[in-house]
């Protein structure tokens, strides 16, 4: 089980997919203006990466080397399509808020990267741990970024319609830039800088 724990931990801290590897940034930045969207995206991401890692790891001996990337893409795209349909059916508000970025999970470098670098070479349990670790790391990063963006860009935090709290001055005059793409780049840049500064992230 130590192997499982190791792979699990790796995804959350040591090579956090978002902050350290700087992979799959387009969903990260696009959907983090509210916590709701970030959580929705994290869920979709987890479903797709776990399912595709599982399938690819199971099929790893069957897939011919020469077309493996194509096969991975088709497997991932299939799962993305399934998740899309699930979201559309059960949580339509989040589905429409996520827009094309949900479909874009299909070309997510992170999912494809894990499939190619890990799942296609390792046994099922390790691949599953890897996928779980990556999902949680991804989820934590998204929640962190969206927390700051929503706090500053909306002046308070609201989760699924429940208002948690509102800031005194910013509640009336939120710094709406943080809800825009500028805020996404800004928060992302400052967070990575902060992690580098306190030494969590080493220079790559």
């Amino acid at each position, binding site marked *: 089980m130590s192997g499982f724990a190791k792979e699990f931990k790796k995804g959350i801290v040591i090579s956090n997919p978002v902050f350290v590897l*700087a*992979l799959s*940034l*387009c969903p990260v*930045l*696009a959907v983090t203006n509210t916590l709701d969207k970030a959580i929705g995206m994290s869920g979709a991401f987890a479903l797709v990466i776990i399912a595709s890692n599982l399938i690819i790891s199971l099929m790893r001996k069957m897939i011919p080397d020469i077309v493996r990337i*194509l096969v991975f*893409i*088709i497997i991932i*795209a*299939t799962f*993305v*399509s399934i998740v*899309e*349909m699930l979201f559309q059916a059960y949580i339509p508000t989040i589905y429409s808020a996520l*827009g*094309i970025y949900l*479909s*874009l999970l*299909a*070309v997510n*470098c992170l999912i*494809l990267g894990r499939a190619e670098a890990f799942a296609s070479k390792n046994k099922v349990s390790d691949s599953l741990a890897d996928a779980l670790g990556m999902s949680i790391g991804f989820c934590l990063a998204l929640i962190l970024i969206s927390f700051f963006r929503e706090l500053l860009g909306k002046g308070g935090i609201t989760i699924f319609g429940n208002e948690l709290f509102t800031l005194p001055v910013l509640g009336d005059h939120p710094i709406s*830039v943080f809800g*825009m*793409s*500028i*805020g*996404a*780049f*800004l928060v*992302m*840049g*400052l967070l*990575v*800088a*902060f992690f*580098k*500064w306190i030494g969590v992230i080493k*220079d*790559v």
Partner: protein
Amino acid sequence: MSELFSIFIGLALINNIVLVQFLGLCPVLGVSKKLGPAVNMGLAVTLVIFISSALAWLANNYILVPLQAEYLHLIIYLLIIGSMVQILEILLKRTNEKLYKSFGLYLALIATNCAVIGVLLLNANESYNFIESLVAALGAGAGFTLVMALMSGIREKLELSNIPKAMKGLPVIFITAALLALAFSGFAGMLF
């Protein structure tokens, strides 16, 4: 005519594909260290977006819609892009060795570039007609190339700057992107 112009300006400047829609960020972070490669990448992406937009529109309107299989559009688009990149690579290699050498490396990367698939999905979402799709593709390509060129110019300057240690690398590029997006916000609400 003005509608087409609005679509072009919309994707190139107002809702810049990179700075506002976050599409194609990986090459902006990865291949923008030097101007030459950055612009080549931009042009290659523009070419791929343009051709695959045309193919995707045809596939969508003549295959998927009649068959009522729109849920398959993601997979179809990916197949179109993948095979097109492959064909382009072979064609370039056969016809123009020099161009292949300057483009070839990036072509493979483009297959998974979210800018390409993103534009196809946007076209489908907005249900643009054929011409509109092509103009949107050109606008997106122009916006992408512009940001690549500006970013590489800035990064060449940053190479010689005394950036704080914690800011070096990714953080300063993100901040630059943020400020670039701030500058581009001047185009917001532009109407012709």
